């Protein structure tokens, strides 16, 4: 027991007492030297393994962090709330519709301590809303009340500085239509979620929502001229409304399209129902004598009539009990051109008789008058026409009764008859210069040339019905149409729908202009007339005079021999005794 290290050594023979057992837990006995070495080795290895695994984990993590990148797929750095909705431009790149970021002011009524105080403070900064209105809004039992959809940056700062709890400002987007009422019906509207609900906004939703820009065929300047000229005449003649249309004949592009009354698309919610209706594409009307252009063209094309054909218009044409009369009867036979220029219903019916109902119907079909137009709008109309296209129907349709079509239908059909002879479906999208599109040949050049000459005479001849459509130098050719509106299932003589379709320059037509005025009232300055020649024709003249320089149409010297030749001026018109036709 003299070993100095043996003082605490356990004597195996010695049975440990309870005390020594507890003590050995606190101060364990020193093991034997050989035993101690292996223990130390084990401990060393264990510690080394622990340290190594710690560093291994740290190293692995560091390696992982250094070599892998952040998951960028879930990151969103572009607001997906419609900020990217494509703009709508006119054919010259002017903005018609644009999405801009705005700040929306809203409140959570639950968090508002004193609604009266908040309402008073806010009403000073929100000019559109009174304190009472704000108070009612804040008293609603909801968690979200919108107070203003678009606040200006200055008001934004002022509202923030009020420091009102429960009042929030969040960024959102606003679809703006900077030109107000111009082309409102065509542009349409988006709902609160930024989705198109009307017009091009709806029909082009997929493209716009994907951020694509849409370039329309509309020319904003021409659009403004047409709208203004039409609005002025509607006011002068105390009319209900009207439609104006300008199309490019050779491509079918719609340059201007307006329907009055209209509305401000920036204040869609306040628009009246009748103002929201697009008469130019969705309204169908009996167009009246404008159809005589088509009737004459069909007769010339199928060869059932020639320039020398004459028609007995001296007495009304009776079909059963239904008499077809002329507004101003003629006491002699009229030739083909006179029927059109003097707008004789009896003559047109007799021309239709020679064409036959089946051929007439097939041509009307080819001219797109029996189907919904393939326009880039959802607001289009299905024409109304008799299911049984008999003899009587063919007579009335020859002068535009018994068939109801939209102004856009007329533009397409008359473009073919008075233009290139090819039917081109009207479009609202700008065409590329090299774009190929469908053209259906319907009339020969010979036919269209004759039709154009007659339309020119309706303007230039002293007894023509469209004298007031003359725009000196621009060689306007036109045809008027005055149709009585149907009220209570009868034609109302006092309610007219007057329209004029014109093309210019008529020797080689570039543009077609259509004007329709709904229920003009006779005026003193119009000598009590409210017919197309008095109401719509002057609008044509004004529009042509104003838009020709914009559209780069040069004035023409009418006395040039080539022009005279292309128009065949020696159509026999108005022999002695001819009576001035009013429509």
């Amino acid at each position, binding site marked *: 027991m003299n070993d100095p290290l043996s003082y605490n050594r356990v004597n195996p023979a010695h049975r440990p007492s309870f005390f020594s057992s507890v003590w050995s837990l606190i101060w364990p006995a020193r093991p034997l030297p050989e035993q101690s070495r292996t223990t130390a080795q084990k401990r060393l290895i264990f510690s080394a393994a622990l340290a190594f695994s710690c560093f291994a984990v740290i190293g692995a993590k560091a390696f992982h962090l*250094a*070599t892998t990148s952040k998951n960028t797929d879930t990151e969103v750095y572009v607001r997906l709330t419609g900020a990217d909705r494509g703009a709508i431009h006119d054919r010259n790149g002017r903005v018609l519709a644009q999405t801009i970021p705005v700040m929306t002011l809203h409140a959570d009524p639950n968090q508002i301590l004193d609604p009266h105080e908040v309402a008073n403070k806010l009403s000073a900064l929100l000019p559109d809303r009174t304190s009472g209105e704000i108070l009612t809004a804040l008293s609603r039992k909801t968690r979200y009340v919108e107070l203003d959809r678009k606040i200006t940056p200055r008001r934004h700062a002022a509202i923030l500085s009020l420091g009102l709890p429960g009042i929030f400002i969040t960024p959102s987007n606003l679809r*703006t239509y*900077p*030109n107000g009422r111009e082309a409102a019906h065509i542009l349409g509207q988006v709902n609160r979620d930024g989705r198109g609900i009307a017009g091009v906004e709806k029909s082009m939703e997929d493209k716009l929502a994907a951020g694509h820009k849409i370039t329309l065929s509309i020319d904003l300047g021409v659009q403004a001229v047409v709208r203004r000229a039409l609005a002025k005449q509607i006011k002068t003649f105390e009319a209900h409304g009207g439609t104006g249309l300008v199309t490019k004949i050779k491509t079918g592009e719609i340059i201007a399209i307006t329907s009055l009354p209209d509305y401000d698309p920036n204040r869609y919610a306040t628009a009246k129902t009748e103002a929201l209706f697009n008469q130019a594409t969705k309204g169908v009307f009996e167009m009246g004598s404008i159809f005589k252009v088509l009737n004459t063209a069909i007769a010339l094309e199928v060869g059932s009539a020639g320039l020398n054909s004459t028609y007995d218009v001296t007495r009304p044409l009776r079909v059963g009990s239904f008499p077809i009369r002329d507004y101003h009867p003629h006491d002699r036979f009229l030739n083909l051109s006179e029927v059109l220029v003097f707008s004789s219903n009896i003559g047109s019916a007799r021309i239709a008789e020679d064409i036959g109902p089946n051929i007439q119907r097939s041509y009307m079909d080819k001219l797109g008058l029996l189907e919904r137009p393939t326009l880039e709008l959802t607001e289009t109309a299905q024409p109304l026409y008799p299911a049984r296209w008999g003899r009587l129907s063919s007579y009335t349709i020859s002068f535009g009764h018994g068939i109801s079509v939209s102004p856009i239908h007329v533009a397409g059909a008359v473009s073919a008859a008075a233009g290139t002879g090819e039917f081109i479906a009207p479009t609202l999208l700008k065409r590329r210069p090299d774009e190929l599109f469908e053209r259906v040949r319907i009339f020969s050049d010979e036919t269209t040339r004759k039709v154009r000459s007659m339309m020119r005479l309706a303007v230039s001849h002293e007894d023509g019905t469209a004298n007031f459509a003359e725009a000196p130098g*621009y060689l306007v050719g036109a045809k008027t149409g005055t149709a009585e509106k149907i009220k209570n299932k009868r034609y109302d003589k006092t309610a007219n729908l007057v329209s004029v379709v014109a093309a210019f320059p008529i020797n080689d037509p570039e543009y077609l202009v259509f004007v329709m005025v709904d229920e003009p009232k006779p005026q003193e300055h119009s000598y009590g007339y409210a017919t197309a020649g008095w109401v719509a024709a002057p609008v044509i003249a004004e529009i042509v*005079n104003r838009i020709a*320089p914009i559209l780069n149409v040069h004035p023409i010297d009418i006395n040039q021999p080539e022009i005279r030749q292309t128009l065949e001026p020696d159509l026999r018109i108005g022999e002695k005794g001819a009576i001035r036709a009013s429509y």
Partner: protein
Amino acid sequence: MIRLVLAICVVLGGSGTVLYMSKQTVDSRFEQLRSLQKEISIAKERANILEAEWAYVTRPDRILTLSSGLLLMRPITSDRILPLEAIPMRRAKPQTNIRTGQ
């Protein structure tokens, strides 16, 4: 053997460093790209606002009202527009010598 192990270690270490550096560069480029994209989207938004404002102040209705009130101008009539051929061409210069007068 130990030399080979050391050489491999050096190669591994070197390539690791290069990998790490290039990754860092790519990361910082991405960061730049993202901030540029953000700048572009902000600039686009601003451009949209400016375009809309420009369209608003140049809307035909306003221009027409302003021009009719402030300018003494009338719509151009067709007799004021002439084709280029209608303008007489300048007469050809007479081929005379100033000094000799011939």
